[in-house]
């Protein structure tokens, strides 16, 4: 218990994270939002891993990490769903997740949510194996990207949990910077939340609206025709607001963007 408490309070910083050697195979947790709304983004993550010579295992029973209920205060419901996911990833393989937020949930919050579980050792073991996609591509696979696309400008949105829980933003950006024909224009107030926050966006729609409007204004200011993001939640929020305002800006998940640029 004390250990768990320490982990949560320190928000284990990835700067000190020990990355494993390149494994023969990895598990892939596709996330519920990619699964339902952005399947091509989810698939692109798998293809990037496979292209690096890693066998990808996708347990078909996977659904959602449980974060929506956990953050909304429905911990009982969240526990049932979280325990179910852990069961599906039993082998001692890395679990790669194309979302900083879901990865943060599985890595940092499962030990809190399930602190009283009799299987706490198994849970800690699972959490320690969770990696966000871009940190895995950079630190474990040492991926080298060859850009085959036409020159273009893009901007990048940092998800709060990728930034403050998983600490992987520099990894994500470094992947974009590997693309020689892509100019990355940074967002003003990049460190500020886009206003999604799961149920926050519908519990406090007016505050969320004020936040996403400012985010869209910042995207517009960059002049980039494409917004790249590493989290489907933020992307759904910002791109939904962009579409609502009928602006000519596309959005793409990082995995899909990288795959499109390098597989052309």
């Amino acid at each position, binding site marked *: 218990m004390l250990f768990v408490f320490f982990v949560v309070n320190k928000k284990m910083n990835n700067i000190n994270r020990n990355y494993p050697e390149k494994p023969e195979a990895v598990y892939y947790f596709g996330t519920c939002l990619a699964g339902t709304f952005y399947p091509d983004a989810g698939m692109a993550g798998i293809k990037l891993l496979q292209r690096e010579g890693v066998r990808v295992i996708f347990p078909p029973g996977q659904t959602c990490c449980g974060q929506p209920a956990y953050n909304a205060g429905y911990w009982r419901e*969240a526990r049932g*769903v979280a325990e179910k996911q852990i069961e599906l990833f039993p082998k001692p393989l890395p679990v790669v997740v194309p979302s900083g937020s879901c990865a943060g949930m599985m890595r940092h919050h499962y030990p809190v949510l399930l602190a009283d579980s009799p299987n706490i050792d198994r849970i800690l073991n699972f959490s320690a194996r969770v990696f966000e996609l871009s940190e895995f591509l950079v630190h474990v696979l040492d991926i080298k990207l060859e850009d085959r696309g036409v020159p273009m400008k893009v901007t990048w949105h940092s998800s709060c949990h990728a930034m403050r829980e998983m600490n992987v933003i520099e990894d994500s950006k470094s992947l974009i910077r590997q693309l020689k024909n892509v100019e990355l224009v940074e967002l003003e107030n990049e460190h500020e939340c886009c206003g999604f926050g799961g149920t926050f966006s519908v519990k406090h729609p007016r505050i969320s609206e004020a936040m996403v409007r400012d985010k869209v204004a910042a995207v517009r200011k960059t002049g980039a025709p494409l917004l790249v993001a590493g989290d489907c939640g933020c992307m759904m929020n910002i791109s939904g607001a962009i579409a609502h305002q009928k602006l000519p800006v596309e959005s793409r998940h990082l995995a899909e963007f990288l795959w499109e640029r390098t597989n052309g």
Partner: protein
Amino acid sequence: MDDQTPLNFDENVARALSDSQLRKNLAFAMGNFRQKRKAIFPDPIELEALRDAGNEIRRRALARLPELLERFEKNCVENGMHVHWAETTNEANQTVLEIMRTHDATRMVKGKSMVSEEMHLNRFLAEHGIEALETDLGEFILQLSGETPSHIIVPAIHKNKAEIADIFHQKIPDTPYTEKVEELNGIARRVLRKKFHEADVGLSGVNFAVAETGTLCLVENEGNGRMCTTVPPVHIAVMGLEKVIEKLSDLPVLLRLLTGSATGSLITTYVNMISSPRKTGEKDGPREVHVVILDNGRSKIYADPTFRQTLQCIRCGTCLNHCPVYTRIGGHAYGFVYPGPIGKILNPQVQGMKKAGVLATASSLCLACEEVCPVRIPIADLLRRLRERMHQGTGHAAPDFNPSGSIAERLAWKLWALLNRHSGLLHSAEKVMGSVGFISPRVGILRKWSICRTTPTISPRRLHELVEQQGVDDE
């Protein structure tokens, strides 16, 4: 607890968001504070070490709180100060009133004190014929305009120069309209100087109460705090019972963190260390010093070791400055004395879930507050735990009133859990919705979602199907 009417947060938010001047003032001021904080803590490694030290000092103090409070009281009394304990704000107000009456006092000058705001002391004293004048410039402005603070460090941050110029012109007799900062300061100084000398009692807050020496540490930039605590014959200091720290050597770290986080300065213009009333032969200082130690729900928070972390707070206000919600709605919308992230965890615990629980839901859990908190309060974690307490009451005596969890909401989460524990069921449900194109109902949460966004469409081919088609291994 007195009034249990739930806070009408939505209405407050709507009002705040429609005030474009407020939005502009806040965006400007908060951006400024964030930059200044960053500049004063240039070395991230040093900053993290400082925050670790700050956390350790506050945790150590809280771990021994009852003992340290007794030691603090004993040393204060030995130093010639009077110590009073108040369980409720009403008791604290009565204590202040009794001290005033003992001295036939009718005029009070006040330094900035959030605890006195918590007590609604000015209103209480006014009802008893006592004038309590705010002397902190921001508080002075608000007292003139009949408002309450919207920020715990910079109370009038929601006002700009022109608005302040207008208040001075309207409310202070014979004052011409001016937007020049020096002239505005001059006007306030002229009014306040006179009041400092006329006052019977000076009241102040306390930033840190040092148990080891029985010392009140008070920081400020305007000199009004020193005037309030030295010029009038009686000084009353009000403090929350969590303000105590173990020893003087804990102060440097906390002061560096407090001033750096609060205003982005290295040190405040005045650092007052008050350990006794005027001693024989001394030429200034009050003849009496009273310390009023307020509980008002703090010991209830203290009882739970996880929620106890709320009491680590040193009231620097930097969580407000970095909060994307506070930056957009300002302090008044929160409806209680303490706004922003700290208010979201403090008010529901002090005021009760029924009254203030909605505040715990008003966060996207973006962690901007946790990232900057000088004493590392895990605000997002506590928010989640408050929400959990609100809905399910696990680990607590009874589920508290739930301001937002309608029966429909509870059922929705049960259904969500059922579907997400059984992927087959989930996929069938999604397939049905996907194949009919999922025409979004313009009701309920989707209506709220779509006030400013298009609704996402369920993809006709889900990831699970793509994976199967492409022959990705399933074990």
